[in-house]
């Protein structure tokens, strides 16, 4: 099972045409191993990208070099996944006798 330990989702907002066109090519930047959750559409519309821990520093440097504004949308994916899994297990246990 992929646990997504150390993975984060960054939210990036393009503020000019050059940044927008860079973001449109994120998926082709294989070196960062990104998973584009929400792709680039237009200026000021946020882009969400899941970044694995081993490329985090390099990707953040790329963003800073190109003067992107970004924030952390999901700090710790593993924590959310663990909570989601627990909730499903709990709900399944509750539901079993009724079903």
């Amino acid at each position, binding site marked *: 099972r992929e646990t997504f330990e150390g993975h984060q989702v960054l939210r990036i907002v393009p503020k000019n045409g050059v940044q927008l066109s860079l973001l449109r090519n994120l998926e082709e930047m294989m070196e960062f191993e990104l998973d584009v959750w929400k792709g680039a559409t237009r200026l000021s519309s946020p882009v969400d990208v899941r970044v694995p821990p081993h490329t985090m520093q390099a990707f953040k440097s790329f963003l800073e070099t190109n003067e992107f504004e970004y924030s952390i949308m*999901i700090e710790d994916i593993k924590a959310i996944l663990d909570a989601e899994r627990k909730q*499903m297990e709990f709900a399944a246990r509750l*539901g079993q006798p*009724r*079903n």
Partner: protein
Amino acid sequence: TDSFDYANYHTLSEIYSFQDMLVAENPDFVSKIVIGQSYEGRPLNVLKFSTGGSNRPAIWIDTGIHAREWITQASGLWFAKKIVTDYGKDPAITAILNNMDIFLEIATNPDGYYFTHVSNRMWRKTRKPNPGYSCPGVDPNRNWDAGFGLGGSSGYPCSETYRGPSPHSESEVRSIVEFVQSHGNIKAFISIHAYSQMLLYPYGYTTASAKDEAELYALAQKAVNSLTSMYGTRYTYGNIIDTIYQASGGTVDWTYNQGIKYSYTYELRDTGYYGFLLPPNQIIPTAQETWSSLMVLMDHAYKNPY
């Protein structure tokens, strides 16, 4: 199905059980059609809601073609129950179902959905291996024969938007294609994705306008107004290429080219900051607001035969 927990996410086997229960409870109204098999051999189940007649005009709704978009499968379960509970009570859905059939495919990419539960919650594509590459799977929303291979899809198997080796190469896609063509009387086709709060219509592969653009735009506006009026969720709407980006080989471009005028695709909500990990307490409000707009689309298709 009354005690089914609609406010939580469910495994594939629970979805399959739910479908069988719904059919068993409503044998004269709901039936299950198996339109094909996934690559890994799972049934591609479609629920048919019908009050009679043969080959009536029909509405198609699918959820979950992208496996990780769990809010869509969860909404599909809620829609199925909603159709059953509202028929005979709500005049609008009753009128629609007295004249049209509804087909609902809840787990459109079952192999991918199963994989999201056991191995990788973030899986999007199908699971068929790609010869010569270690990365399996095809993006089933780039695999349709509508501008296949043009911009906005990838020829690289490890990409999330890999289009596959040829149009309809994925059985999950081909099965729908064959069903739609053999049915021949589907009047509205709605394919549901998540998340960025959009209601979109063709085209995605070309900047050319759909010939029904004006009507599709006005109807999208009406549907979105209905959706937003419920919980204030803000949606954008328009054709795919202008509203999001170029995407070739997409589902509703193909259905529109097949003559299904009311071809729409949704991106459901994440009004917060969760993306594909939308908390389960948002399932029911998401399904409710989406249903409100689906009713606008379905009612229009019913009242505007072509």
